[in-house]
């Protein structure tokens, strides 16, 4: 973490004060207060991730469907955002970010259901010891993550899933897949406890070592399973993209192909809307990635630069390969590449150096293009908007790649060792393994639960409209409206 240096200074300044007026400092020590710069940035970042979902994602997806389904696509993304926001404050935040007792390795508890006990004065720790932000800002920020993840899935189910089925599936998925996975990857005891325990151990007399060690282990164990494994995911490559991508694949396999798929032409009804969406996704992603630093400092700036260059690199890679393969670089290709790059850099945003991000982007662009253009056709399933090909494949590329680009040897930041109070030695093989485990568990958990949920939903309301209805389009059938009346 790059807040080290500033922090040390701050600490020393406080030290200075201490020598003057113990009381004040004491008090300050007891209750660290948020830095308004951090708060300003977190508020901004939260707003950015909202615009990333609606209208961003809604347009990126909507532009790719046929006119008769445009409105249904907008609706599905919009509905997802709304329903998950509510679940989040009811119990989602609590399930994701509180201590979960016996199941703590997999999911949190309900101690903060209905945001019990959270006030405008509540704060949460960042990744820097002694630095906090208002808990409500953190809640808002994480809320947007919870909302966009299930929204990503609907792209794979586009143009053929009844709204009633979506309306049922989304809240179930958020509850049984997103909240647990978020807990497993991101929940931990925080820097304060970690450092305190480590200090205690160091200070402990020979005979007290054992006890202190136990305490250290307890603190370390108070974290989600994947976090315990040591996998790193800066802004949600695993939690958001792999998670949603695999669900999308399972979904489109369960649903089956769209009527006329492969026989009728299904060109995007508006690449203009698609590009507007892509632009807003990029814009919002700065909040997504740079906001994940939880502070307005050098790490956030690093994440922002990486989010610029990895995206640009992936877009250019996609365009260039398209040019080689088909002779014509396409806007849809450029936009798809940009999203692939954004996905891939998400887990690496605060760990990679800019050059590492460029390389990661180039790789992700090529990998996703090949998958979407060639491999998918080979398998012949109908992942309508390539959610699996871009988000899951891109996410895996990023999750694995993070272990490489995070290496100090390759210009990465390495991983901060709170006990040691400095960046630890970097073991790439070990990290690669950790990342692979994280990917594997996410694929498994999300894939299986999604399958079960869809079967359940099928039994309750059914998944697809009648053939004629699907021909007429979901806009009229599900919503009684048309997207355009020119």
């Amino acid at each position, binding site marked *: 973490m790059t807040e080290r240096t500033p922090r040390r200074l701050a600490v020393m300044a406080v030290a200075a004060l201490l020598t003057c007026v113990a009381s004040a400092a004491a008090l300050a020590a007891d209750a660290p207060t948020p830095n308004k710069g951090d708060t300003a940035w977190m508020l901004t970042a939260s707003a950015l991730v909202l615009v990333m979902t609606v209208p961003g994602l809604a347009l990126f997806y909507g532009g790719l469907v046929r006119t008769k389904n445009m409105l249904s696509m907008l609706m599905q993304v919009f509905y997802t955002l709304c329903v998950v926001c509510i679940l989040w404050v009811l119990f989602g935040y609590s399930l994701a970010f509180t201590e979960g007792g016996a199941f703590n390795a997999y999911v949190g508890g309900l101690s903060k259901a209905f945001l019990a006990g959270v006030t405008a004065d509540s704060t949460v720790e960042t990744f820097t010891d002694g630095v906090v932000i208002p808990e409500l800002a953190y809640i808002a920020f994480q809320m947007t993550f919870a909302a966009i993840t299930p929204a990503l899935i609907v792209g794979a189910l586009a143009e053929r899933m009844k709204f009633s089925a979506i309306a049922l599936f989304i809240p179930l998925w958020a509850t049984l897949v997103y909240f647990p996975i978020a807990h497993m990857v991101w929940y931990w005891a925080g820097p304060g406890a970690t450092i305190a325990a480590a200090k205690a151990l160091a200070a402990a007399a020979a005979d007290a070592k054992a006890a202190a060690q136990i305490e250290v282990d307890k603190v370390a164990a108070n974290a989600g399973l994947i976090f315990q494994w040591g996998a790193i995911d800066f802004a949600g490559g695993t939690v958001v993209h792999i998670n949603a991508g695999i669900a999308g694949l399972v979904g489109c396999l369960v649903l089956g192909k769209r009527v006329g798929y492969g026989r009728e*032409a299904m*060109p995007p009804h508006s690449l203009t809307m698609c590009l507007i969406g892509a632009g807003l996704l990029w814009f919002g992603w700065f909040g997504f990635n740079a906001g994940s630093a939880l502070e307005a400092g050098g790490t956030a700036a690093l994440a922002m630069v990486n989010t610029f260059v990895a995206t640009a690199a992936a877009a250019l890679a996609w365009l260039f390969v398209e040019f080689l393969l088909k002779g014509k670089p396409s806007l*849809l*290709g450029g936009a*798809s590449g940009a999203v692939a790059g954004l996905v891939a850099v998400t887990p690496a945003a605060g760990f990679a150096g800019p050059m590492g991000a460029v390389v990661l982007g180039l790789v992700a662009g090529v990998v996703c293009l090949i998958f979407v253009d*060639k491999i998918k*056709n080979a398998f012949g399933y109908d992942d309508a908007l390539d959610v699996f090909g871009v988000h899951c494949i891109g996410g895996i590329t990023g999750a694995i790649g993070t272990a490489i680009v995070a290496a100090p040897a390759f210009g990465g930041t390495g991983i901060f060792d709170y006990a040691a109070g400095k960046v630890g030695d970097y073991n790439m093989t070990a990290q690669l393994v950790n990342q692979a485990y994280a990917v594997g568990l996410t694929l498994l958990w999300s894939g299986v639960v999604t399958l079960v949920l869809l079967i359940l939903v099928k039994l309750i309301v059914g998944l697809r409209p009648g053939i004629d209805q699907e021909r007429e389009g979901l806009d009229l059938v599900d919503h009684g409206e048309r997207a355009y009346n020119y």
Partner: protein
Amino acid sequence: MKLVTAIIKPFKLEDVRSALMDLGLQGLTVTEVKGYGRQKGHTEIYRGAEYAVNFLPKIKVEVVVPSSAADKVVEAIVRTARTGQIGDGKIFVTPVEHAVRVRTGETDDSAI
């Protein structure tokens, strides 16, 4: 009277229109249509999916004229709409038994 229907390339509409006005006609109706024919279309690729687009944008010009004027009109359209390349289009002449001007109720030749 005759209904002269011409399928032409869109960017030729303005030329055709003024040629017809020069013949003293006072009105015509155009429709945007899509044409399939010898002129080859193009291919569009969206990610993995490739579509051959055989229908090309054309303009259909419909003008009702006194039988006597039909040939002049056809000749004028051929002259102005021609580029010499495949896809220039067709002209069809069909009989019209009766014509009415809604505003005045005038009929036949005086209606057009």
